[in-house]
């Protein structure tokens, strides 16, 4: 078994880790959501790359072709993309509300304001 035959997983891991890095290292909530989107897309690519069969064609039946790529992951990811954008919209809506409540979307500033508020009520 050739080690280089698994390059699709490596690309996915690279993308996934850059998304992960954005999520944990950046304080801006909108940027974090972008990181999550990258992470999400890397999972999509993982599924689609698993479904690929060498020499296969797109799963639309036709008499000329014998080998088809696996249609099941396509279905899963197709719906996941649309659901993904809907949930991202929900996240962005939350970010907008946080901006209205705190005047910022930077995580550390929000934390400071929370601490100040606790201090003033005690």
């Amino acid at each position, binding site marked *: 078994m050739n080690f280089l035959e698994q390059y699709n*997983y490596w690309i996915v891991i690279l993308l996934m880790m850059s998304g*992960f890095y954005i999520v944990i290292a950046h304080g*801006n909530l909108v940027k974090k959501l*972008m990181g999550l989107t990258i992470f999400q*897309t890397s999972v999509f690519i993982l599924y689609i790359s698993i479904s690929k069969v060498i020499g296969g064609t797109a799963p639309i039946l036709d008499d000329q072709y014998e080998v088809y790529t696996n249609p099941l992951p396509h279905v899963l990811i197709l*719906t996941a*993309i649309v659901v993904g954008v*809907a949930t991202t919209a929900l996240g962005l809506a939350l970010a*907008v509300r946080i901006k209205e409540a705190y005047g910022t979307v930077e995580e550390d*500033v929000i934390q400071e304001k929370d601490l100040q508020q606790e201090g003033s009520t005690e």
Partner: protein
Amino acid sequence: MTALSLAFTKDLFASVMLTGIYSLLSAGFFVLMDAVDVAFTEAAVGAGISTILMLTTLTMTGRFENRKLHHPKIALSVVIVTGIMLVMGTVDMPAFGSPSAPAQTHVAPYYIQQSAQDIDIPNIVTSVLASYRGFDTFGEVVVVFTAVIGVLALLEFARVERADSEKPVPMLQHKILRIVSKILIPPIMLFALYVQFHGEYSPGGGFQAGVIFASSIILYAMLFGIEQTRKAVSVPVVKVLSALGVLIYGSVGIASMLNGGTYLNYSVLAENDVTGQHIGIIVIELGVGITVATAMILIFLTFARRIGKTEEETA
């Protein structure tokens, strides 16, 4: 890679554009890996709708982010360690494109060989989506619907009504843009309907059609202003329609139960099994299309309406 440059830009506007490019590139990947339906969706959603939504949010939350990173070295090392562990995990995975991988030998051969007899439509993705896996798809539609309710709850109902001050429409001075898009919008809608009803034979279906249809409305809204769009597209009607789409999908399931079958088993809907499947698939794809299109329109309109308000409140 685009994703890497994304991690290091401070200008959020630039990063949004990079996510758009990244989505378009991954749509290209999907075509290369034979997933035409998925590529279609990714190109419409990733490069279109989600980029617009991110931009709309940025107008409210500010363009630049804070320079400071949270412990970038710790974060980087965590990421690298996780990455290495994942790479080690891939050693046991089947090679790329191998026909003997477990994923290819489980239920997929059944779908590929039997769907011609059971359902008799060429696009296997549509038959799996709408018929074999109808339950999953119903769940996804409900999730989209729930997300819309969430967005509306967060942004729409919490707002205070204000006097309608006539804001200048931002794009009104661009004559070429306006005329070109006036010509483009009807064909985009027509194309959406084609994708909707031709989804059984070529790549496409309710999800893609819904997104394309919504993007034509969003294009209109960007050029002619939100208030104008609210006049053209009645928001209460859109809200009712998005619930109606879920209802259509659900009632097809009930209808097949009333005809003596199990939930979402379309074969009992007509005399002939195959005809029943066709009817079921067309109707539920319609439900999916309606819900997805109205969901995207609602999300966009709610976000865009919010822009003026946030500025007033922070000022």
